[in-house]
């Protein structure tokens, strides 16, 4: 079932033109000139129930603007937008009952009060029945390991604990979709891992759709099946991570072979030498259909087997892939629209 459907969505911001310098500052006070810039430029996509989407893009690519439009606090300039069959900005309060929102840099918890008090308020805000409320709290306390800090004031929590509480709060009223704007920002490795595991869980087991923006690509890799990459308001990629790898030629595997002594020039079938330090040679397997076993076969085929000390096979990390995409973008090469 489709829960989000947007078509050629555009959001234009008008800002007062600013002038530099002292006189410029004075001029700014009286000027009526505007600068228009498109934060979202004709983006279309459909999100189905239970999807997990990573919404990626450099700073200022219009990611938060998209979340604000989807949650109904910004009105698009043009285009169609539907969430749960409703137009968000016309049904803000109705939509709110079906969605959960977490902003990594903002808090919905009451700063001076114990965590449980914020949960209790949400029970009233979303009119959650006592039974549902109790069972949800029990479930989240278990899943997110919140027992230790449920009765502590929010200001005394660590960032990791606070983020767990924020996510639990956003899920309390059983939304069909959860929006997260940089949920792991500023967290330590362990806390990030826990958050990701939890998000993956609720996505797969509870079938809650996840829409996530982040700069930490590990988040995407561990949580999302599908990524949408935006740049300067435009969507430049929409699909599965595997598809992105194929499109950018980053399916290739890299093999580093270490020898006891330098075997000299060495050819490996299907592979290209990319660096040669004598005893340490790096190859890249070009054909996308070559899996680990194929790579092994090729290596078994080379001469000087007895001189091989160590072999490592690596895939390009998602960071490298996205880096490559962004670099390509800056050179104005569009991968696919």
């Amino acid at each position, binding site marked *: 079932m489709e829960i989000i459907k947007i078509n050629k969505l555009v959001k234009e911001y008008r800002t007062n033109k600013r002038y530099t310098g002292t006189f410029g500052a004075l001029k700014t006070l009286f000027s009526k000139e505007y600068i228009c810039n498109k934060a979202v430029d004709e983006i279309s996509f459909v999100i189905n129930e239970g999807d997990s989407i990573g919404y990626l893009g450099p700073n200022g690519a219009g990611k938060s603007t998209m979340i604000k439009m989807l949650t109904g606090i910004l009105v698009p300039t043009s285009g169609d937008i539907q969430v749960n069959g409703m137009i968000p900005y016309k049904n803000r309060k109705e939509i709110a009952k079906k969605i959960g929102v977490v902003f990594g840099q903002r808090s*919905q918890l009451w700063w001076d*009060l114990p965590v449980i008090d914020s949960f209790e308020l949400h029970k009233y805000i979303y009119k959650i029945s006592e039974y549902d409320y109790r069972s949800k709290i029990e479930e989240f306390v278990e899943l997110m390991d919140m027992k230790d800090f449920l009765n502590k004031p929010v200001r005394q929590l660590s960032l990791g604990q606070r983020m767990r509480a924020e996510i639990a709060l956003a899920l309390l009223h059983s939304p069909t979709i959860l929006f997260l704007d940089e949920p792991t920002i500023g967290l330590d490795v362990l806390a990030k891992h826990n958050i990701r595991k939890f998000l993956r869980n609720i996505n797969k087991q509870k079938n809650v759709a996840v829409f996530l923006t982040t700069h930490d690509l590990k988040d995407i890799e561990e949580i999302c099946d599908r990524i949408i990459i935006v740049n300067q308001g435009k969507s430049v990629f929409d699909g599965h991570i595997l598809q992105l790898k194929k499109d950018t030629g980053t399916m290739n595997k890299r093999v580093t072979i270490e020898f006891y002594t330098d075997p000299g020039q060495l050819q490996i079938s299907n592979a290209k030498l990319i660096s040669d330090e004598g005893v340490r040679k790096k190859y890249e397997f070009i054909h996308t259909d070559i899996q680990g076993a194929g790579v092994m076969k090729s290596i078994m085929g080379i001469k000087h087997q007895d001189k091989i000390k160590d072999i490592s096979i690596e895939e390009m990390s998602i960071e490298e892939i996205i880096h490559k995409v962004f670099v390509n973008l800056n050179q104005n090469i569009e991968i696919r629209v």
Partner: protein
Amino acid sequence: MKVYIAFCNKSFIRGLSYRSEVWLRILGNMVLIFIQVSIWKSLIGNSESNGITLLNMITYSVITTSVMNLLMTRVFLSIDHKLKSGDISTDLQKPISYPLYLFAEQLGVVGFQVVFTTIPSICISILLFGIQYPDAPNIVPFIISLLLAMIISYLLGYLIALISFWFLTTFALNWTITALISIFSGSLIPLWFFNPFWANLTSTLPFQYLGFVPSAIYLGKVEHPYYIILEGVGWVIGLLLIVNLLWWRAIKRLVIQGG
């Protein structure tokens, strides 16, 4: 409705999270009352001025200072903070009436003030200076006038908050409104000491409901208390209309321009 009671309740409890503040507030209130009482002592002494006795003025000072604790003009601080941090967008995402939510929150704050600041201050004042008690027929209009003070102050504060949607800062507005309230509410100098021009001007403004009106009704210095209350209700309706109109426009602006 339950949700607003819950907000009010949580906001009340939140007041308790900083204990030292409770003592400081009582101290601040007492200093304010003490200064006013000293001034009136030296000005009026044992004589009478325009039929006003020293006991009248001590009572007046205690009541206006207490009424100040009830005022909710500070609601704009909460919105100002939320506008700057962008938290307003998370608040707007909740399926509740935002103005009612803010009112409930302020009500909790005021409730806390009354229990932990105002009532102790009044008790101390009775012990230290002694105050006048109201005549029976004035009690009901006095209580209504207290409610009016709360509602009008809330609406004024909310109005400032809404104007700040356009200016994105409340500093200048805050400055202005504080000055207007401290003079025209009659908290410091009762309106009966104003000259006719200023007294007339003041009686056409809503600020008198934030200090002078409740105190004067308490002291029985208002000839027709229900008439002035009716006028206050008129102000409430007028302000409600303005606030609703502005709120509608502010939201429109927010959703078009972004937070």
